[in-house]
């Protein structure tokens, strides 16, 4: 207690030195992390900003590279093709969105608010479309509703080639995306609101309109914009089943690949960027609001059994799941038929890809290679990048920049990204020109295309870690990379596997960005589907789409086993 009586120099005049602003010296950790963060920023700048910039530039220059202002835009606006394509695009995107979000809402509602059995199965079935390229439903629709289709009668004489086919295909393909968003929105309901409403003797319908729907409104808004953007920028489905029904996304493709008119392609690409940017903004806003809706004290809602409602919900889910299975099943069936529709004996003739257009089995092997590399490097880059953004001390400007750049791909449709990549990398004086036509450019482009969701997954996982891990290791004089390897990565392993799976599956199925970038030595399976369909080899196209689906499904299964094994081995430290 010797110190107890020591007088306190409270508010005594301070020495001049003490008033000087403090500048803390950087530790080696700080330096390493800052250097890493700068590298990540550079990587994002080169792989996102510069290509998109190249696209912007292209839209304003003539064929010799001279600046022409808005000339291309004027030319495009003047052509009647635009107004038709624009109207068509908005029509199918709007219709698909309404149908898809409605179905997704019903399905999500049944999964979260009723006591139907086999919810796990229904969830798994709803995820099926994610594992297939968007071309698969389109091809299946040809077999279902084409002029020789199994269920041609169902269209009452209308043609599947056109808006009907596009809308059905797009709904199938975007359904899981909408479902995830809406399910999340519905899952975060506060049971107390429902109890209060029930206590006030509100009818079930009234509760639905006054509590359920408003509670999920941000999720619905978000899903609406996401689906609309996906549809308006997708060209796989309209390409296969659109017939003569032109849409914007296909226009880009026609201009660039068909007519090698890069400038005009850039112009249409920019037009497509608009809904994507809008959707991005709305989605960000909606997510913030949705998060705010759920207070910390919210009580999770436990659905109560209601025989009638449950039976209706079960029928609805069964119908939707059945539709998904029918589409998938048709593709598999058609791929195994010897000669549709005249010889349906099963054979693997359509899997003889080496004698078809589109790159043969090599394109499938290329896809595997591309997807593996994307998963490997993408996961490493994304996770390390997210960690650097989260854990680098101070350095706020660069951290903010990286965070912004990491979210940017969310607002850039694959088609636009792919275009930007050609414009940027094709220039012979670009130091990265050597990447052009290589597998690496496909990997880079695909990582970037799907960067944002992976980044957000990583950030979420990192935010769940104790924020003081880094403080503890610094105080223990342990270099941060050691803590990163020994603690951060092992603890985040489930999220890391999630990211790897997400990147792998998307790399297997993606068409939109890579279609502009593949070279003869880097043909991809998804592109082969497109090319075989083009040449009229629809059954082999279906077969390749099925191969992609099976591969994704298998990897998904492996992932399930891996996470289960991981959780079991981590049981010791995860659960008491």
């Amino acid at each position, binding site marked *: 207690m010797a110190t107890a009586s020591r007088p306190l120099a409270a508010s005594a005049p301070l020495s001049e030195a003490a008033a000087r602003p403090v500048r803390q010296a950087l530790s080696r950790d700080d330096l390493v992390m800052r250097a890493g963060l700068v590298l990540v920023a*550079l*990587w994002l700048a*080169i792989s996102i900003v510069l290509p998109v910039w190249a696209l912007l530039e292209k839209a304003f220059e003539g064929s010799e590279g001279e600046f022409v202002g808005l000339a291309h835009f004027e030319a495009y606006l003047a052509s009647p*093709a635009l107004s038709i394509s624009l109207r068509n695009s908005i029509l199918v995107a709007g219709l698909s969105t309404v149908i898809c979000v409605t179905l997704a809402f019903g399905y999500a509602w049944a999964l979260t608010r009723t006591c139907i059995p086999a919810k796990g199965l229904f969830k798994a079935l709803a995820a099926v479309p994610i594992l297939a390229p968007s071309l698969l439903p389109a091809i299946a629709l*040809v077999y279902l509703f*084409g*002029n*020789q289709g199994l269920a041609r009668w169902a269209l009452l004489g209308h043609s599947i*080639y056109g808006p009907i086919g596009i809308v059905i295909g797009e709904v199938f393909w975007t359904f899981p995306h909408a479902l995830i968003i809406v399910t999340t929105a519905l899952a975060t309901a506060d049971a107390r609101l429902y109890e209060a409403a029930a206590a006030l003797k509100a009818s079930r319908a009234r509760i639905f309109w006054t509590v359920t729907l408003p509670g999920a409104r941000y999720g619905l808004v978000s899903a609406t914009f996401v689906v609309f953007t996906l549809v308006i920028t997708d*060209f796989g489905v*309209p*390409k296969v089943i*659109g*017939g*003569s029904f*032109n849409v914007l996304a*296909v226009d880009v*493709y*026609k201009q660039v*690949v*068909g*007519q*090698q008119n*890069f400038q005009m392609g850039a112009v249409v690409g920019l037009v497509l960027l608009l809904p994507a940017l809008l959707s991005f903004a709305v989605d960000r806003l909606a997510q913030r609001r949705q998060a705010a809706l759920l207070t910390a004290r919210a009580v999770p809602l436990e659905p109560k059994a209601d025989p009638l409602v449950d039976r209706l919900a079960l029928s609805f889910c069964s119908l939707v799941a059945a539709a998904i299975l029918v589409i998938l099943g048709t593709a598999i069936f058609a791929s195994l038929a*010897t*000669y*549709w*529709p*005249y*010889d349906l004996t099963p054979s693997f003739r359509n899997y003889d890809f*080496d*004698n*078809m*257009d*589109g790159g*043969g089995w090599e394109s499938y*092997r290329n896809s*595997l*290679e591309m997807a*593996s*590399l994307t998963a*490997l*490097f993408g996961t490493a880059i994304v996770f390390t990048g997210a960690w650097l953004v989260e854990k680098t001390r101070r350095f706020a400007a660069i951290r903010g920049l990286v965070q912004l750049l990491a979210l940017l791909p969310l607002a850039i449709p694959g088609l636009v990204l792919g275009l930007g990549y050609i414009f940027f990398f094709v220039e*012979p004086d670009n130091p*990265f020109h050597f*990447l052009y*036509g290589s*597998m*690496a450019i496909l*990997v880079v482009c695909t990582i970037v295309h799907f960067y944002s969701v992976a980044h957000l997954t990583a950030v979420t996982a990192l935010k769940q870690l104790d924020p003081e891990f880094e403080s503890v290791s610094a105080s223990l004089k342990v270099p941060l990379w050691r803590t990163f390897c020994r603690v951060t990565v092992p603890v985040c392993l489930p999220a890391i596997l999630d990211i790897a799976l997400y990147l792998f599956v998307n790399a297997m199925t993606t068409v939109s960005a890579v279609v502009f970038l593949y*070279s*003869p*030595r880097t043909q991809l399976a998804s592109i082969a589907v497109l090319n075989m369909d*083009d*040449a*009229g*080899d*629809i059954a082999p196209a279906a077969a390749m789409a099925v191969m992609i689906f099976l591969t994704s499904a298998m990897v998904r299964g492996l992932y399930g086993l891996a996470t289960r094994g991981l959780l079991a081995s981590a049981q010791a430290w995860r659960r008491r």
Partner: protein
Amino acid sequence: MTAPDHLVRIVLVATTALLVGTRASQAATELTVYTALEADQLKAYQQAFEKANPDVKLRWVRDSTGIVTAKLLAEKANPQADVVMGLAATSLMLLDGEGLLLPYAPEGLGKVKPTMRDPADPPKWVGMDVWSSAFCFNTVEAGKRGLKAPTSWADLTDTAYKGQITMPNPASSGTGFLMVSAWLQTMGEEKGWGYMDALHQNIAAYTHSGSKPCRQAGAGEYVIGLSFEYRANKTKKDGAPIEVILPKEGLGWDMEATGIVKTTKKLEAAKKLADWAISEEANRLYAQNFAIVALPGIASRLEHVKGDVEAMLIRNDFAWAAANRERILAEWSKRYDGKSEPRS
């Protein structure tokens, strides 16, 4: 960034080896060949060529005629191709007009039919084979609808066929272009366009590729596909219930030809391919797919194509077709683009 990129490439190579097993050694010269040949033909040509020239490997960039042409034109400042093989002669003439082709007289040029080469000496391109238009007529579907088989171009405008005919878009497909070119040459411009206006009424869709109309007819998706004889023959061989019909007015046709791109850095290998392309071995392979090939005396008959193709070919003015290609396509697009499949 070079270090990570290096790493990327190292792992790339490693993973490639892992996934695919050992690939062929990289020591051979690799030629980038732009082509519009059918994929099912490429394999055989490649195998035969690489067997004869083990030090050269071929890398195909394959797409339909229109796209390969557009790609070559777009890349003219910085050409990526070493050789163009199996592209329509009209397209090669167009490229020659841009000064993209190297004059070269392949070994054995003297044996090639004089009509099947660039008249210049040395020629910028040499023909390989002739491909010509044909109808694929689905007898099963026709039976269901009570449709008679058409025998002539004129028959196709019969309203009975409304919505049952598909043809390739001439902007993307060489097969499509040779039909349009033939109509305009044989009927004269005015009547030719008039004919197409009438035909347009019956067309269900203009497809991207020349093969697709026949494939679709084979699958019963539409009754009649306007395509070319090789695809028609193959589709029937695959088991489709179709009849291959040669319209009696005469067949539009074009040559598939080979030329060396002036800027190639692999001239020796490129010459080897050009030489091989007019060899007897190559011509025998062509003959398995086409009735008329560059060397005399190797002509064959296609199993399912009845009629004398060579005799039914129209008189074709390639120079006119090449010179007017852009104008014709622009006019065509203006008139009929609405029914085009994407990518035209």
